[in-house]
């Protein structure tokens, strides 16, 4: 089997809080607490979960927007998490990002031309000034924006168009992996469809791998090859799309799916409505982190933490799943 493009092994990121008067660090937010997965070339892996589950922190750790607490992030055989700044610079070319908010993620004082040219110059991808110009105009064609728009600034564009600029900027570096952190969440329905279609086309055209971070399960199902479901800093289930949406095994995955309102009036369903709220990641519950809200909780869940076990390609962390069938 070929080496995956990206490997994440037992990734942990704990943010200190309550620094105290004398810099004593008393508590930590266990934002990501032991997460492992792989992404193959050209594959889309979606990270789903609710606010505070740590999905964006995973994305940022992969981009090395901060240093991780422990664990490894390996891109194509090379460690990212402890790479020297000079190596990191080269690695950054291969992983790019598209953020959620197309209003704050583009520099308002730069023209679109300069926004797109910056990564090309930084990574020395253009051979000459004319090559740079060719690349910039080609990017506009790729994301289906008019070439005349190159001389305008971000505020002159609508949300959907800005997100196209953000995608073009990510593509400018010719990356192998793009982290899409809620990249379509802020967009209106009809524009969202445009951007989703664009991302799928680009993936096919350039063989891009995508880490698609989202809370919108219907969009995820539409786009993804595999899904990892996160809850309080851990992956509770990771499986190919078919398994997740046809036969989810973790109670949280089931609840999450059944909570999505369907655009079909009178659709027959029995939603699993979870009580309560997500506990604080500062003091995550002992045992299974989901046990405080799980409808199927039993004694073992309160004391012993379940680990991911596989059945085929579907990995689930639940004691219930470990019980013999029947």
């Amino acid at each position, binding site marked *: 089997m070929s080496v995956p493009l990206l490997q994440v092994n037992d990734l942990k990121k704990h943010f200190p809080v309550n620094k105290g008067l004398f810099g004593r660090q008393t508590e930590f937010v266990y934002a990501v607490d032991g997460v492992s997965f792989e992404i193959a070339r050209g594959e889309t892996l979606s990270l789903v979960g*609710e*606010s505070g589950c740590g999905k964006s922190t995973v994305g940022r750790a992969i981009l090395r927007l901060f240093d991780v607490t422990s664990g490894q992030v390996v891109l194509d055989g090379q460690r990212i998490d402890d790479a020297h700044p000079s190596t990191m610079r080269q690695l950054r070319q291969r992983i790019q990002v598209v953020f959620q908010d197309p209003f704050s993620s583009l520099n308002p004082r730069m023209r679109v031309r300069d926004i797109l040219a910056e990564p090309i110059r930084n990574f020395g991808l253009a051979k000459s000034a004319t090559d740079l110009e060719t690349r910039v105009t080609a990017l506009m064609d790729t994301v289906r924006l008019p070439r005349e728009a190159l001389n305008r600034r971000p505020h002159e564009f*609508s*949300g*959907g*168009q800005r997100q196209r600029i953000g995608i073009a900027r990510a593509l400018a570096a010719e990356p192998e992996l793009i982290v899409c952190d809620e990249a379509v969440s802020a967009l*209106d*329905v*009809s*524009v*969202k*469809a*445009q951007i*989703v*279609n664009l991302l*799928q086309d680009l993936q096919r055209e350039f063989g891009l791998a995508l880490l698609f971070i989202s*809370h919108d*399960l*219907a*969009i995820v*199902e*539409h786009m993804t090859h595999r899904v990892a479901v996160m809850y309080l800093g851990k992956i509770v289930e990771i499986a190919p*799309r*078919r398994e997740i*949406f*046809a036969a989810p095994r973790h109670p949280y995955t089931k*609840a*999450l*799916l*059944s*909570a*999505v*309102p*369907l*655009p*079909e*009036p*009178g*659709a027959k369903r029995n*939603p699993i*409505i*979870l*009580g309560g*709220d*997500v506990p604080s990641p500062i003091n995550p519950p002992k045992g299974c982190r989901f046990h405080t809200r799980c409808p199927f909780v039993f004694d073992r869940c309160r004391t012993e933490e379940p680990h991911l076990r596989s059945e085929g390609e579907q990995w689930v962390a639940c004691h219930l799943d470990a019980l013999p069938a029947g």
Partner: protein
Amino acid sequence: MALLEVENLQTHFRTPSGINRAVDGVSFHVNEGETLAVVGESGCGKSVTSMSLMRLIPEPPGRIAGAIRFAGKDLLRMSDREMRAIRGNDISMIFQEPMTSLNPVLTVGRQIRETLMIHQGLDKQAAETHAIEMLTLVGIPEPKRRVREYPHQLSGGMRQRVMIAIALACNPKLLIADEPTTALDVTIQAQILKLMLDLKRRVGAAIILITHDLGVVAEIAERVMVMYAGRKVEEAPVAELFRSPRHPYTQGLLGAVPKLGSSLAGTTTRLAEIPGQVPDLRKPIAGCVFAGRCALATDLCRQYAPGLEEKGPGHIAACHYASKGAVAA
């Protein structure tokens, strides 16, 4: 007689670059105990419509014209004093952002008490008791403790429950919910939607639900009004609208949303795109507001605005080609 009748509502804003016709001639009604959903994308005028109903639009730069008859009386002709007696009492509102719509320096108990003491004339003791009852009603655990807490001590879902408790404290006849679950996570959204359905059954208030989420519409609305660029383009009973949308914009919206479970059918199809974007409402639009993005548009559409026509029982749409569109779809 309908509980609320809105006739030719026009809410315009004066801006340095021209008059923004945010809502331009919208008429609709809400019956007692009914849930009407208003759907559309950003800038379609759905929130401005709801703010206009409560007369929360600052004038100037805004200007509201038309008629808003609530239980037969025109809200637009009322004095500010009369209007204050309506707000929070007969008509109340839930906003999207439970953090910014609660006062951070007052306990939630005090915020629920306030409306009861002003509108119902309860004394502090009675209002406190009622506030605890309201918190119990909206499913907040340990209401006696929570009533003394501040908004920051509550989670997003709990804050939205408090908002609902305040809105329902005076038994309003009409509740306007502007994107009540948009800021919430899906499992919390499911809790709040269930709560709204339960409460509606028990309290019997009519609801105007403003949302862009067609899933939420399908789950709790009875009738749906679709808005685009400040106009009403279609209105129908909920099942009818999802089964046979007549307006090309409504058809586009429904086609643009992927359905959960679609991958199980085998192949996921490409999402339908609505090309282009919403027109600039500061420029006068001749013809149909959707013509610039519509695949069916002809010269007729670009020159003459279509009127709302009946396409079926309770089903109206503003499109010259609506019946043809339905056949084609």
